[in-house]
C-alpha cells in the first residue's frame, strides 16, 4: 500500500512537472542580441549539452564570456554568452579546450580550423551610419578584424565589406567608433535549426 501511494505520488508529480515545464518553456523567449562562445552549436543543442559549470568563463583571457541570470528565460539560466559591443571574442579557442561536455567543441587555434568550426554570427554594416561610407575614411573595423581580407575587406575609402567567411567574433563591432555602432554581428544561433 505504501509503495503504491508512493508511485501515485511519483506519477502525479511527473504530471505536475510537465505543466511546470510548459511554463518554463513559455518563459524562454530570447530578446537579447548575444553570441554563444565560439564553436557552439545551435541554441537547442547548446542548452542540452551545457552543464552550466562556468569553466568557459573562467578560461576566457579577454573576459568576454558572461553568464545569464534569468533575463533570457529559465532554460538559459547560467549559460555563457558574449555581448560583442561590451567585450568581443578574440578567438583564442580556450573555452572549447576546457569545456567538459562538448557544448563548446574543441577547435584548434589555426585560421583554417577556426574558419571551419566557428559560426557565431555574421557582421553586417549599416551604410548610413558607417563613417567610411560617408566619405570620412575610418577603417577601424578592418584593423580590428582578426581575419582581415578573409572575413572583412575594405574599399578604396576604407569602406568595410563583410565577406562570407566572417565567423562573427564581434571585434569589429567592439572597435567601431560610431555611436551607435555601424557594424553589428547578427548571431547565428537563433536562425540555425
Amino acid at each position, binding site marked *: 500500500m505504501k509503495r503504491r501511494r508512493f508511485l501515485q505520488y511519483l506519477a502525479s508529480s*511527473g504530471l505536475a*512537472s510537465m505543466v*511546470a515545464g510548459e511554463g518554463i518553456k513559455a518563459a524562454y523567449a530570447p530578446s537579447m542580441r548575444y553570441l554563444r562562445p565560439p564553436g557552439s552549436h545551435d541554441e537547442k543543442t547548446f542548452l542540452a549539452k551545457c552543464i*552550466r559549470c562556468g569553466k568557459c568563463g573562467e578560461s*576566457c583571457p579577454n573576459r568576454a564570456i558572461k553568464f545569464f*541570470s534569468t533575463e533570457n528565460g529559465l532554460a538559459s539560466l547560467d549559460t555563457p554568452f558574449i555581448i560583442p559591443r561590451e567585450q568581443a571574442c578574440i578567438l583564442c579557442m580556450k573555452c572549447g579546450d576546457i569545456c567538459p561536455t562538448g557544448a563548446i567543441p574543441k577547435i584548434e587555434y589555426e585560421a583554417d580550423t577556426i574558419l571551419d568550426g566557428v559560426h557565431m554570427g555574421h557582421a553586417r554594416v549599416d551604410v548610413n551610419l558607417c563613417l567610411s561610407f560617408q566619405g570620412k575614411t575610418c577603417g577601424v573595423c578592418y584593423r580590428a578584424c582578426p581575419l582581415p581580407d578573409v572575413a572583412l575587406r575594405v574599399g578604396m575609402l576604407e569602406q568595410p565589406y563583410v565577406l562570407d567567411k566572417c565567423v562573427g567574433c564581434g571585434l569589429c563591432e567592439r572597435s567601431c567608433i560610431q555611436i551607435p555602432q555601424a557594424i553589428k554581428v547578427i548571431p547565428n544561433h537563433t536562425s540555425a535549426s
Partner: protein
Amino acid sequence: MENVKLEPSSKLRHLNKLRWLTLTTVFFMLILLPFIYLYQTYEAAHAYDLLTPTEKTISDSMESLTSPFVKDPEELDAIKGTTWSGTLFGLKLSDPLAVVGQVFASLSLYWPFILTAFIPLFATLLLGRFYCGWICPATLIYELNDNLAVWLRKAGLPVSRRKLDRRIKYVVLAVGLILSIYLGAALFASIYPPAIIGREIYYAIALGGFGAGAVFFLLTLLFDLMVSRRGFCRYVCPGGALYSLLGRYRLFRIKRNVTKCNDCAKCNVACQFGLDPLQDDFGMECNNCTACIASCPTDALGFTINMRDSAYQGPGHLGHQYKKEQEGS
C-alpha cells in the same frame, strides 16, 4: 581524583577534523581560483599600469602566491573549475549528477564527458555519500548554518526540526530528469547547492556580483533553519539522492561495537542527517562524515567493510539497560 579521566583513544575520531580540513580546503580553493583567474586576465592584457589599486592588490598577491609554483601565469590553467566539473592537472573530473543530467537533457552519450565522472562514481560505490560529507562546498555552509541553529535555539528563537519523508529527494531526482528531457536543458545545475556555490563565488569575485542562484541558496539555508535540520540535503537535494542510490551497497560503512557502547545517544545528536547510529540504523543516507565517531565517548563506533548494515544489535553492553537485562535473566 577528578582530573584522571579515561580519554578515548581511537584514532578514527580525528577523521572528523580531517573532514573539516578537506571541506575548508575545497571552499577556499573555490574562492582562490576566481582571483587567480583575474590575475591571469590582467597578465594576458599586459595592463598592470592601468589597473585600479584594488586590482593591483589582487594581481600582486596572486603573483606572490603563485610565483613559487609556476613561472608563466598561463600554467595556472592546470586547476580550473568547481566541484561540479573541474580540471585538475589535466585530469577532468565531473559530478556524476552533471553527467546524468546532461545525458538526459541531450539524450546522447558524449563519452569524453561521461568518463570524467568515473572516478567520483567509483569512489561513491565504495564510500557512499562521502561527497556530501567530505567535499561538497555547500556542506561547509550548511554545517555552519546548523551551528547557527543551535545558537538561535539557545537564544530562545524557534528553530524547527521537523521530520519529512526522506524519499522526497528521489522524487526531485526523478522529476528533474523528466523535466531535463522535456526542456532539453540540464536543470540540476540550477538547484544543486554545490554547483550553485562554485558558480556564485566565481560570479561574485570575477564578474562583479551574485546571480540568481545565490537567492535560491539563501532560501535553502532558511529551509534548514525553519523547517528541518539539514533539510535540504536530507529531503530535497537531487545529488544526495543519486549518491544515496549509488552508495546503497557501499563497502565502507560505520558500525557500532555493541560491547563498547554505553547507550549515551550522543551519536544520534551529532548526526545532522537524523540517522540512528544507536540502533544500528545507518542506511543509504549515511555520508560517512564520522561526526558520530568523533562524538562517541567510548570509541564504540568504527568503520567496517560490509555490503550491509548489521541488524539492531541490542542495547550497548556498558549501558544501564543491558546490565538490568543481565541481572534479570
